[in-house]
């Protein structure tokens, strides 16, 4: 089979999975549905490996394979079709997406065990993976938009999965609306491209763009900025980030899959995929990099004070995606995508661990209520520590190599790009601090009630409540099921976490400066045309960067250790001392309030004005005027319709006589 056949198979298996589960859910037992979903993704992963093997058989310059299944645009005269592009970038993304998804599916088989919406969950999950793979394999901008919108919908469906929770449904809507804003940006960018170039195929666009546009011409900058709107909305970058923390309302495997490993990296993929366009619009690329820098910095600071376990990880995701955006925007394509992969491993792992803890806490996500889970959840403790070490870029872990590759590249490019290196290193210190804040707050310290119960072997406890409103929930469809109290005791959960844990520890070794550069060589056929790709930091500089990174991560971990273990309670003093700063961070820089004041309220006010003034007086006035006018006219004319046949006859004859007289008079 050729590489493109494998490409189609990658798409076919998850789609078949979602259709099978969706149509036959009444016949399947819950576990069967879960394993069908997992199997579909596993087959997709195997197909991705097949595509990789076949792709590598080609010489480097021919590693851009396209295949078309169906021509959509033939009738309309617009050039687009159901076509895929199989090249190192799309195969890499397909491998990461299907691989991590597979582990998350395995985890979900255990985690969602007692939920009444089990079949629905796996049907959605498979649909999401299908959409995401469609997004990364699409061979033209139109199919990209299709995948992009499918992913947005799947995210909405999964965030609102527990649909009887009001907080979950509103969070889903928020995610969907902000994603649609991104979709609009992407659609406009595609329209501009079709208008300017007349083609939608990636390869054709990238071939024609350099001839058609001059560098930094306003149209290409506009196209790139519109692409960025799409990328930022999906990747939760400022100012489109507010949906991500709220999306933590979804089940934890969803957070691991969508909001850590796959969907939020779609923006990174988009920027990497359209790098020839950004190469023509360096201004847009710099804007993108700066927004990435701001996001990675602000999100890291917020993650240090938020108390909701999953939201800490969500802000951390924003921050890490910020690193990737910086990477692919300044030209460190290899580094950005490398970080995308390692981040998928350790962040999904952290979410899985958080899911385990939250399950033990009966859905309570507040870390103020947690503590001392080290003995009662030993497996989760070890794996989460691995994830936190990788997130903190501790020496030797996956995050260590990938993060420093981006920052090293920024330093090597020099000039104003030093800002990215410095900002990134400062945020790396924060990252190390907050990742171990999670570990020390959750697993050390005084044992909370739940931890003690677990040690006594008592699994389920307490009434299930909504963690945000405190409302009681009844475990029926549309609410979290009762078995979410199983913590880490289901073996599928352990398998999923263990595999990702290995990835988080060792995935970094595929690209060690001076030793090997697997990814860098693998991506060369894609990015070789970018002059920026030739910039590679020397081995010495890379190792200096790695040294700085490891010192910062150890400093951050030590600070967390000092504040939470060595001198517990000192955080309260710091909080009082810098209460203003704490308030600023704790309220997430008031971004939600800002959006509320700048967009939501003005729009609402315009709506009220339109309803109360314009609609009532202007529109209604016109309508009522015409209605009365026509009614009055009708009343007047009605008088003639007496119903007397003889009076009608009189009128006819009188009219006839009148006409006759008129003609007689005019004739004489």
């Amino acid at each position, binding site marked *: 089979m050729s590489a493109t056949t494998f490409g189609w198979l990658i798409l076919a298996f998850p789609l078949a999975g979602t259709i099978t589960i969706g149509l036959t859910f009444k016949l399947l037992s819950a576990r069967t549905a879960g394993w069908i979903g997992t199997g579909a993704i596993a087959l997709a992963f195997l197909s991705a490996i097949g595509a990789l093997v076949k792709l590598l058989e080609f010489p480097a310059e021919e590693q851009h394979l396209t295949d078309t299944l169906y021509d959509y645009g033939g009738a309309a005269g617009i050039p687009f079709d159901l076509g895929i592009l199989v090249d190192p970038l799309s195969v890499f993304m397909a491998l990461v997406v299907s691989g991590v998804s597979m582990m998350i599916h395995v985890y979900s088989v255990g985690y969602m065990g007692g939920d009444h919406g089990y079949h629905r969950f796996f049907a959605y999950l498979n649909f999401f993976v299908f959409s995401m793979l469609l997004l990364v394999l699409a061979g033209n901008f139109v199919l990209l938009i299709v995948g992009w919108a499918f992913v947005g919908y799947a995210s909405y469906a999964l965030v609102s999965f527990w649909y009887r929770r009001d907080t979950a449904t509103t969070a889903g809507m928020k995610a969907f609306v902000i994603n649609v804003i991104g979709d609009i940006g992407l659609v406009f960018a595609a329209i501009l491209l079709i208008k300017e170039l007349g083609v939608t195929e990636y390869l054709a666009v990238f071939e024609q763009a350099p001839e058609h546009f001059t560098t930094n011409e306003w149209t290409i900058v506009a196209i790139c900025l519109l692409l960025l709107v799409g990328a930022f909305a999906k990747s939760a970058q400022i100012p489109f980030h507010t949906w991500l923390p709220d999306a933590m309302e979804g089940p934890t495997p969803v957070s691991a899959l969508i909001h850590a490993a796959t969907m939020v990296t779609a923006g990174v993929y988009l920027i990497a995929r359209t790098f020839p366009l950004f190469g023509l619009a360096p201004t847009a690329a710099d804007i993108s990099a700066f927004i990435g820098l701001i996001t990675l910095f602000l999100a890291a600071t917020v993650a240090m004070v938020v108390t909701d376990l999953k939201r800490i990880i969500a802000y951390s995701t924003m921050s890490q995606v910020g690193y990737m955006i910086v990477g692919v925007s300044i030209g460190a394509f290899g580094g950005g995508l490398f970080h995308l992969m390692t981040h998928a491993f350790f962040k999904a792992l952290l979410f899985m661990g958080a899911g385990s803890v939250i399950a033990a806490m009966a859905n309570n996500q507040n870390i103020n209520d947690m503590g001392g889970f080290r003995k009662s959840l030993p497996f989760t403790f070890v794996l989460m520590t691995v994830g936190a070490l990788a997130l903190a870029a501790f020496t030797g872990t996956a995050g260590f190599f990938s993060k420093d590759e981006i920052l090293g590249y920024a330093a090597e490019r020099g000039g104003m790009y030093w800002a990215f290196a410095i900002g990134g290193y400062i945020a790396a210190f924060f990252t190390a601090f907050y990742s171990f804040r999670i570990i020390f707050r959750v697993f050390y310290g005084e044992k909370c009630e739940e931890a003690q119960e677990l040690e006594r072997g008592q699994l389920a406890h307490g009434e299930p409540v909504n963690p945000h409103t405190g409302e009681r929930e009844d475990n029926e469809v549309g609410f979290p099921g009762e078995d979410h109290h199983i913590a880490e005791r289901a073996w599928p959960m352990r398998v999923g976490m263990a595999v990702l844990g290995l990835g988080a520890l060792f995935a970094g070794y595929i690209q060690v400066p001076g030793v090997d550069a697997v990814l860098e060589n693998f991506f060369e056929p894609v990015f070789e045309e970018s002059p920026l790709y030739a910039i590679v930091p020397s081995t010495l500089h890379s190792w200096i960067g790695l040294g700085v990174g490891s010192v910062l991560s150890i400093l951050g971990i030590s600070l967390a250790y000092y504040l939470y273990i060595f001198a517990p309670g000192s955080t309260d003093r710091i909080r009082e001392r810098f209460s203003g700063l704490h308030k600023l961070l704790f309220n997430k820089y008031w971004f939600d309030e800002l959006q509320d004041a700048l967009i939501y309220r003005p729009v609402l006010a315009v709506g009220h004005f339109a309803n109360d003034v314009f609609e009532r007086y202007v529109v209604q006035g016109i309508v009522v005027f015409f209605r009365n006018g026509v009614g009055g006219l009708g009343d007047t004319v009605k*008088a003639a*319709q007496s*119903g007397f*046949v*003889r009076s009608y*006859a009189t009128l006819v*004859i009188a009219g006839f006589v009148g006409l006759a007289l008129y003609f007689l008079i005019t004739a004489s």
Partner: protein
Amino acid sequence: MDITWYLVLSALLFAIGAVGVLVRRSPLVILLCLEMMLNSANLAFLSFARSLGDQDGQIMALIVMVVAACEVVVGLGLIVAMYRRRLPLDVDEVRGLRG
């Protein structure tokens, strides 16, 4: 040949018919008056046809007769229907089309 007297007769018949339509209330009589008006028109057609030596007027008269026959069928049908439904046979009483 002078056709004046024929036309005068035709006009008289027409006027009598028209007044009959206007003043009588019985639908049957109104139909009769309508027939009278149609035939007055026929008389005028025939007079002109004879006077001008042209066949068009005669053909027109035949057409008018056909139309008159149709009209009588419909009119009498209506009257029978009114009678069967025990409606008053008085056009002033039947005024369901009043606006």
